[in-house]
C-alpha cells in the first residue's frame, strides 16, 4: 500500500518564555529548538509500519523552508522512499487552507500514487487541526480524524476513532482516504544520528508556486492572525492561602476555569 505522510517542523517551547516579535503576529524564534510535530511522529511511524507490513512506498511531504527539511530527513532515515518540500517566498501568509492547498497540488502535479494519506491530528504550535480534513476535501477523498487504530484491507479500512470521556467509535472507510492520527496509536521507534547521516545525500524534491502551476492570487489565506498576546498569569506557583475550606473553594474555581469540572 502506498502512503503519503504530511509532516511539520515546529518549535519545542516546553520551558521557553515565548516572546511576541515586532509584528505582533508571530513569535521570536531565535534560539528555539525545533522538532517534528509530535502527532506527525506517530503518523510517520504508522506509515512506516504499513510499508513494513504490506510493501509499497511512503512519500513524505512538508510545507516549509530549507531548514524544515530536517523532518523529511527523519522520514527518509526511517525508510520513506521519496520526500517533497513546498515553499514560495511570495506566499506571505499561510493558514491551514493554504498549507493544504499547497500539499494537494504537490500530490496532484506529481501524480503521487496513494492508498492512504496520514497526517497528525494537529500541530503543537497553532493547534488548528484543519490541514488533514481540508486536504481530504481538496482531493475528494473521505477522511476520519482522531484515529487511534487503523486496520487495512484490500480496498477499505476499519478505524477506531477517539471521542470524549474514554469513548471510541468504529468506522469503515473506502480507500483511498485520509486519516488524522492521534498520539498513542503506536510507539514511535528511535531514529539514530547515524541513520540520519546515512540519508544526508538523498534527494528532496522542492517545489515553488511556478512548479505547482499556481499563481499567488490563488494562494490566499481564509483566516488571518491579527495579534498574539500573552494570557494573564502570575509568576511561579501561586500559593493558595487560607483555611482548608477556603483553599478547597479556590481549587474548585480553578478546576472550573480549567474545564476540569
Amino acid at each position, binding site marked *: 500500500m502506498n502512503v503519503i505522510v504530511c509532516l511539520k517542523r515546529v518549535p519545542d517551547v516546553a520551558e*521557553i518564555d515565548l516572546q511576541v516579535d515586532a509584528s505582533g503576529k508571530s513569535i521570536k524564534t531565535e534560539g528555539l*529548538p525545533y522538532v517534528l510535530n509530535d502527532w506527525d511522529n506517530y503518523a510517520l511511524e504508522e506509515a512506516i509500519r504499513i510499508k513494513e507490513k504490506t510493501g509499497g512506498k511512503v512519500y513524505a511531504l512538508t510545507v516549509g523552508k530549507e531548514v524544515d527539511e530536517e523532518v523529511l530527513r527523519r522520514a527518509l532515515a526511517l525508510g520513506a522512499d521519496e520526500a517533497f518540500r513546498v515553499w514560495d517566498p511570495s506566499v506571505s501568509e499561510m493558514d491551514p487552507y493554504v498549507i493544504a492547498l499547497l500539499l494537494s497540488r504537490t500530490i496532484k502535479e506529481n501524480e503521487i500514487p496513494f492508498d492512504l494519506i496520514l497526517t497528525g491530528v494537529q500541530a503543537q504550535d497553532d493547534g488548528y487541526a484543519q490541514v488533514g480534513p481540508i486536504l481530504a476535501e481538496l482531493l475528494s477523498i473521505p477522511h476520519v480524524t482522531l484515529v487511534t487504530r487503523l486496520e487495512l484491507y484490500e480496498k477499505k479500512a476499519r478505524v477506531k476513532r477517539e471521542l470524549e470521556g474514554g469513548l471510541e467509535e468504529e468506522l469503515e472507510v473506502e480507500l483511498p482516504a485520509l486519516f488524522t492520527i492521534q498520539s498513542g496509536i503506536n510507539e514511535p521507534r*528511535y531514529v*539514530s*544520528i547515524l541513520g540520519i547521516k546515512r540519508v544526508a545525500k538523498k534527494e528532496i524534491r522542492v517545489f515553488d508556486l511556478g512548479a505547482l502551476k499556481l499563481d499567488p492570487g490563488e494562494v490566499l489565506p481564509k483566516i488571518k492572525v491579527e495579534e498574539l498576546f500573552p494570557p494573564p498569569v502570575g509568576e511561579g506557583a501561586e500559593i493558595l492561602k487560607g483555611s482548608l475550606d477556603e483553599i478547597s473553594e479556590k481549587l474548585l474555581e480553578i478546576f472550573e476555569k480549567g474545564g476540569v469540572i
Partner: protein
Amino acid sequence: MQLVQRFELYACLQCGKCTGGCPVSLRTDLNIRRIMRELIFGEEEVLKKEAIWDCTTCKTCTLRCPRGLEPSEVIVALRAILVERGRVPKTVIDALEATYIHGNPWGRARQKRTDWADGIKVKDLTKGEESEGLYFVGCAPSYDPRLQRVSRSIALIMKLAGVDFGILGTSESCCGNEIKRLGEEGLFEELREQNKEKILSSGVKWVVTTSPHCLNALKNEYGLEGIRVYHYTEFFLELLKQGRFPFKNPLAQKVVYHDPCFLGKQNNIYDPPRDLLRGIPELKLLEFSRSREISLCCEGGGGRMWVEGTGRGTRNSEIRVKDAEALGVDIIATACPFCLLTLEDALKTMGLDEKLQVKDIAELLTEALGLEVER
C-alpha cells in the same frame, strides 16, 4: 563485524568473575557471563533480553576479566545495535532525543543551562571572555535544583581560592558519557565535536568537572590534546595543600565516603576525595567495608537514570544507606551527582532521611569555609 569476532568471545573461559563482581547480578536478570557465551550461538536471541538495560557500565567485569576481555563493552555494543534498529525503551528514546534537541538528556531548555549560577559572577568563555581553565558543569548539576547546590559550591570555592576559570555557558552540551553507554555512538560523536570545538577555541589549559562521568568522557574519550582534565576533588586537593582554603567552621560529624564507580574503579581516583574530607576540621571519616575498588555501585550510571530493565527488590543504593546507618554516621559523602541523587532517593524510601544526609564533598567544603550557597 559480528560481536563474536569484535570482542574475541571465543577467548572467554566462562570463569564467572564478571557475573561474580557484577553489582546488579543479584537483583536483575543480567548474567553477563551467559551473554558472553550465548553470543557465540547468535546475536538475535541475546538482543531480546531486557536485562541489557540493567547494566550500569561500572566496568567491574572488564576490570576483573582474567583474559582482558571487555564484557561491559559487549553490552554497549548490543545497545548500539538496538539503537540503530530504533527498538529501545521509550525512556531511552526520550533521553536521546532530548539530548539531540536540547543538549541534555533531561529535556530542559538550553537557555536555562546557566540558571544554576544566578547571583554568581562567572566568566562565559563563549562570549569573548578568557581564562586559564574551564569548569565543565554537566547537565544534572546545571538543571537539578538539588544538584545546583553542588555546582554553586564548586564555583564559589574556586572564586574564593582565586582560581581563574570560566564556563561554556549555554553552549555547553552533554558530555555524552551516558549517551555513548546507551549505545548512541553517532550522537556521542556529535556532542564530542560540539564540545571539543568550544573547549579548544576557548584556549583553556585545564578543565575541571563536577561529575566523574564528564571526567571520564573528557579525559579518556575526547582526545583533548594538551589540556589537562581533572575531577574537582583532584583540583581542590591541590588548593587545600596550597593553603587556599581558610576553613571557618569545624564540622564535627561522622562521615562515610562512598566511592563513585566512574571516579574510583574506572579512573583510579580514591584518595583525593578522602584527603579533602580529612582536611575539614573535626570531621571524622569512616569507611564502608565495601570501599575503593569494591565500592557498591549505586546503579546510577550506564544510562540507568533513564531506564530500568528487570530489577526487583532492594536497590543497591538502599543497601548502601542501610550500611551507613549501621556504621552510625551522620553523613554519606560522595563526589558524583548520580550517586548523590540515587542515595538520597534511597534515604527517603528507607525512611532514613531524618537520620542521615547525603552530601557532595563540595557542599561540606562550603559549609566548613563559611560560604553561603543559597541564592
